[in-house]
């Protein structure tokens, strides 16, 4: 990663968008990345399969925090089921990074995995 790209991510990490528990949500899920010690919760307000609003809180590194922020941003207004086909390369695209290193994969996907679990739950409820 270029130094200025990392610097840009650190700026986003300092003031992440979509941070803080939603006042109204019907799904939440926790995510952990044990090597970093990342601990996050994701909150989704889903209506008729559409994500009305999304947020997260918790603590983690630059990569995990920004990836959660970008993922929430991406999800708002989309069908929740879209998460099902998403993978690491989609998270890299959201972050604007190519080829994330193996030790940081979990950081980039901690939010993705949590939202996938939410989708599974919501599908079971239907």
């Amino acid at each position: 990663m270029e130094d200025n790209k990392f610097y840009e991510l650190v700026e986003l990490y300092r003031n992440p968008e979509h941070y803080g528990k939603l006042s109204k949500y019907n799904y939440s899920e926790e995510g952990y990345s044990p090597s970093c010690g990342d601990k996050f919760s994701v909150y989704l307000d889903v209506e008729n399969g559409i994500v009305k609003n999304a947020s997260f809180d918790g603590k983690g590194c630059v990569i995990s925090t920004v990836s959660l922020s970008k993922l929430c941003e991406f999800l708002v207004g989309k069908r929740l089921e879209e998460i099902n086909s998403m993978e690491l390369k989609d998270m890299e695209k959201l972050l604007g990074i190519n080829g994330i290193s193996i030790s940081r994969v979990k950081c980039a996907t901690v939010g993705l995995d949590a939202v996938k679990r939410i989708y599974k739950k919501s599908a079971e409820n239907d």
Partner: protein
Amino acid sequence: MTGINIENVRKDFPILSKQVNGNNLIYFDNAATSQKPSAVIEGLKYFYENINANPIRSIHSLAEESTKVYNDARKKVADFINAEPEEIVFVRNATEAINLVSFSFPFKKEDRISSTYMEHHSNLLPWLRLKERGIGVDIAQVSEDYELDINYYRRLPKNTRLVALTHASNVTGTINDVKEIARLSHEQGALVLVDAAQSIPHMPFDVKDIDADFVAFSGHKMLAPFGIGVLYIKKDTSKNMQPFLTGGEMIKDVSLSRIIYENVPNLFEAGTQNVEGAYGLGLAVEYLNNLGMENVEKYEAELTNYLYERAKELKNVEIYSGKSKRFNSIFSFNVTGLHSHDTAYLLDKKGIAVRSGFHCAQPLIEDRLKLDGAARASLYFYNTKEEINTFIDELNKIAAKYGRQ
């Protein structure tokens, strides 16, 4: 510096001349694992080209040679910590050593075990698990200076059967007075288990002087290969202990109605053993003996003092280690406002390897230090002041760019 010829020593470690991300490797993650000298690396090749056979049971010449090097390794390790060979059990690592005690020692329901807030998870989770069997677990507190409260050990909770504690913290660097704590614990009828994974690689260790009942340590942190570790069990202590794993080589006689077990240490070494690892550990111990552990300790103390002296120049960096009366070559820190993983990532770009995260000591880092992780530089005898200079300079640049006031 005293006793250690650093130029010669560095030539013994091939990996130290490696380039990482376009820079000379500066390996400051020694508390996680040490690098290996050529004597150990080439020794493993020699083992497989000249000795390899299943030890102990077969009687052909190669097997005898394999048995001999296995026993020699046990003797070398025993001498290294001033123990008897039959008190040395080979295991995979310190984690397995401590788990073995937790499974094999005949704890009774009303017994209590003391651990501490500064333990690696390996000396905490095996005890917490025993709670399921109705055994009480107490956790000794850590002071603002990252010291254990000696008064706690003067009056242990009633029915304390075992006092488990680390000799040296892998986060704060604190070196605990295990000898005094062993004395106090024994007065109150408790046994003592010392996790020496962070101390034995760095200083002379005399188990008879400390008078511990159990000592656990890992070979890979002291120049040996992965997968070989040691559990020291004081002679009489092992009498009432049950086997840990059962199977081959830990029995004298087997029928379907009766099993006669082997004596310690073989009782605790079920299955074909890691002879390669034990042989490598023996070579590692020889290497350390040739350097002299007093010299290792002295040299590392000089390096550590130099590191903490230069660390005074750092701005936007918090330091968590080195506050206790005695501490080892560990430097735990954060760039303010930056996650430790990101600091480690930025240092790695300069070829500097440090650890980041919880260091398998989550209760200490989260509950006690109130952090979501820390970066850690940890030194060994092959590190240099020049490397420390580069580390401090690069860390200062990172902290200036990314740190918050």
